[in-house]
């Protein structure tokens, strides 16, 4: 059936014919039936990477096939969400090896985007923890690939935005935990220089991320809060928490019922930041033990927070610059704060080493912030793209909805090799999205 589909940024929205499957033969039939199709999970990439005239929803293909509780391995179908995985593994003392800032994505999406988390500088991206992946390719064959087997397909699938085929079954390793809590420390930084110094000082922490206040100028430019954390041990817990160390306390969830005028979310974030930053008794550094949910998924507590940006939607702009391009970070952040169009808060994170075929992370600084869609925005972002390129950086495809193709080809050094592998497995370009056509990774029809 034809319907309007958009991903998390509500931009772009397209008319799409989406079909679901829950069995392998149903998937094969749908893939065989179309010349142009893309797999879609829970629609949490921000832009057009999983949008196409025909999409195939993996959400009903969500069965857990094996859970090795002894050694910490999970084998599951690709449509299961991280949320469901956590429900299964946390009570048994295991955690996701890598998680992005929302648990509402599917495992298939985690691989197609090769997601990173607050522990990238220690644990790398999701692909590092994948034992193997089964991919249904264009000719109807399901091929198993891994770090050692059909490696070309594996590296083109991790971060490959679904262009090699449909990810069907995945085996990955888990991280051992003693409790469902995180011992976190929040440290205030007066400006950008200080927060970058703090990242270095606190780099032995498994998890780290900083929230930057984009509105400050002068000495306070880049004023931020660095949040670092470790999985708490039972000794860290309060007596009440220690009664059920692997269970989270009950929580309620708020829902954003409709699209809000666009200033509201910023008002909300301003207040949240001020509360954190200036809050009474807030020392330079505080440490406390919190459930894993608010630590990893602060925004998931508000269902549909994306509606806070209003009807025309928003784009999230996330780029990474290499370590030696700190000056670029300052330049770009200044441009954004001078323009005043971005969200009040930006997320800054230091990535560790990674060099994969097409995955986004590289050793350096990554910054992410939201821009509500408005007249003139895309021209402005084009200017930022040039700056990112000048400083040898690149943009995250899972957030992208508008990058020009030449920026992509210039900023991803292995794009050509990636395209060759995609074409080897899919010579007719069956798997394609609006994004892949826009970036000329596939030939627009």
């Amino acid at each position, binding site marked *: 059936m034809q319907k309007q589909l958009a991903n998390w940024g509500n931009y772009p929205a397209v008319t799409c014919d989406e079909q679901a499957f829950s069995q392998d033969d149903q998937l094969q039939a749908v893939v065989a039936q179309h010349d142009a199709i893309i797999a879609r999970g829970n629609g949490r990439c921000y832009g057009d990477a999983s949008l196409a005239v025909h999409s195939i929803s993996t959400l*009903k293909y969500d069965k*857990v096939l094996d859970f090795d509780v002894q050694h910490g391995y999970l084998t599951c*179908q690709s449509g299961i969400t991280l949320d469901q995985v956590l429900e*299964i593994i946390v009570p048994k003392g295991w955690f996701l090896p890598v998680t992005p800032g929302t648990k509402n994505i599917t495992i298939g999406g985690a691989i197609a985007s090769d997601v990173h988390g607050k522990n990238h500088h220690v644990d790398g991206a999701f692909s590092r923890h994948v034992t193997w992946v089964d991919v249904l390719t264009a000719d109807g064959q399901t091929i198993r690939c891994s770090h050692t087997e059909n490696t070309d397909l594996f590296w083109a699938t991790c971060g490959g935005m679904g262009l090699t085929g449909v990810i069907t079954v995945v085996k990955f390793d888990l991280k051992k935990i003693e409790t469902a809590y995180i011992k976190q420390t929040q440290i205030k930084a007066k400006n950008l220089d200080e927060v970058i110094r703090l990242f270095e000082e606190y780099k032995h922490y498994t998890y780290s991320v900083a929230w930057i206040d984009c509105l400050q100028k002068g000495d306070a430019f880049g004023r931020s809060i660095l949040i670092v954390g470790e999985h708490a041990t039972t000794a860290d817990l309060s007596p009440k928490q220690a009664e059920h160390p692997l269970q989270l306390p009950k929580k309620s969830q708020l829902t954003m019922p409709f699209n809000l005028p666009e200033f509201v979310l910023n008002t909300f974030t301003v207040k949240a930041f001020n509360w954190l930053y200036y809050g009474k008794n807030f020392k330079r550094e505080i440490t406390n033990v919190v459930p894993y949910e608010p630590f990893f998924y602060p925004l998931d507590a508000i269902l549909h927070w994306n509606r806070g940006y209003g009807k025309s939607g928003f784009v999230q702009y996330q780029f990474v610059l290499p370590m030696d391009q700190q000056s670029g970070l300052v330049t770009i952040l200044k441009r954004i704060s001078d323009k005043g169009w971005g969200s009040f808060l930006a997320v800054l994170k230091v990535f560790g080493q990674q060099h994969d075929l097409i995955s986004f992370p590289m050793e350096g600084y990554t910054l992410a912030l939201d821009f509500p869609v408005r007249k003139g925005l895309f021209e402005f972002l084009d200017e930022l793209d040039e700056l990112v390129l000048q400083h040898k950086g690149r943009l995250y495809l899972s957030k992208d909805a508008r990058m020009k193709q030449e920026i992509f080809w210039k900023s991803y050094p292995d794009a050509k090799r990636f395209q060759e592998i995609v074409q080897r497995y899919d010579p007719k370009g069956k798997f394609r999205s609006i994004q892949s056509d826009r970036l000329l990774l596939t030939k627009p029809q």
Partner: protein
Amino acid sequence: MSTVLILGAGSDMAVAIARKYAREKYNVQLAARKLEYLVPLQQDLQIRYGITATVHAFDALDTASHAAFYASLPVKPDQVICVFGYLGNQETAQDDWEEAQRIIATNYTGAVSILNIVANDYAARKSGTIVGISSVAGVRGRQSNYMYGSAKAGFTAYLAGLRNRLYHDGVHVLSVQPGFVATRMTEHLALPPLLTATPEQVANAVFSAAAAKKNVIYVKWFWRYIMLLIRNIPEGMFKKMKM
């Protein structure tokens, strides 16, 4: 621990029902034609909910095999949920007897055949619950789907009669008329969102209605009134409508 048998366990609605019962700590028997469809769900239920799930080959159309199928179950279930159904294609069924027969045999004859066997067992044991997933399409025949509707009408009447008979044996029968449900079977249809239930809503409604020994439920409450309205349109007017 109680056991539930799900007949037609391959569908989206059946998956949701199986997960709901497993979450409530029932052991689950999954029955459908293709065993390979059921194995992933079997693993999923056992890993997620720590219950025992088994898989059983069952073909609704092969009525001759039903007695042996029921006899072969390792444990007799405390509850049987008949989920299978076949929407078919109305227009094809008007010209093609095979399609018409498949609609009738899946939705009516096949269901009657297996539930007769279950009913006799439960009557003898003086306990058990039978749940039949019928359809609002069975309330009144409409030109767009009266093949399916008439078979479901038969099934609804069968369940009502069975409820009446088994009441005296302490056996409960629940009829479910889900209205529109967003599943693979209906994904090509433009269903009004307000009137459309998710498979999970159906599963929750079935579980609590069976526990509360309700007789007939609609998943979304306003369907009861929609069907009341549809039932009361005079036939002279109804036949002229295009629906």
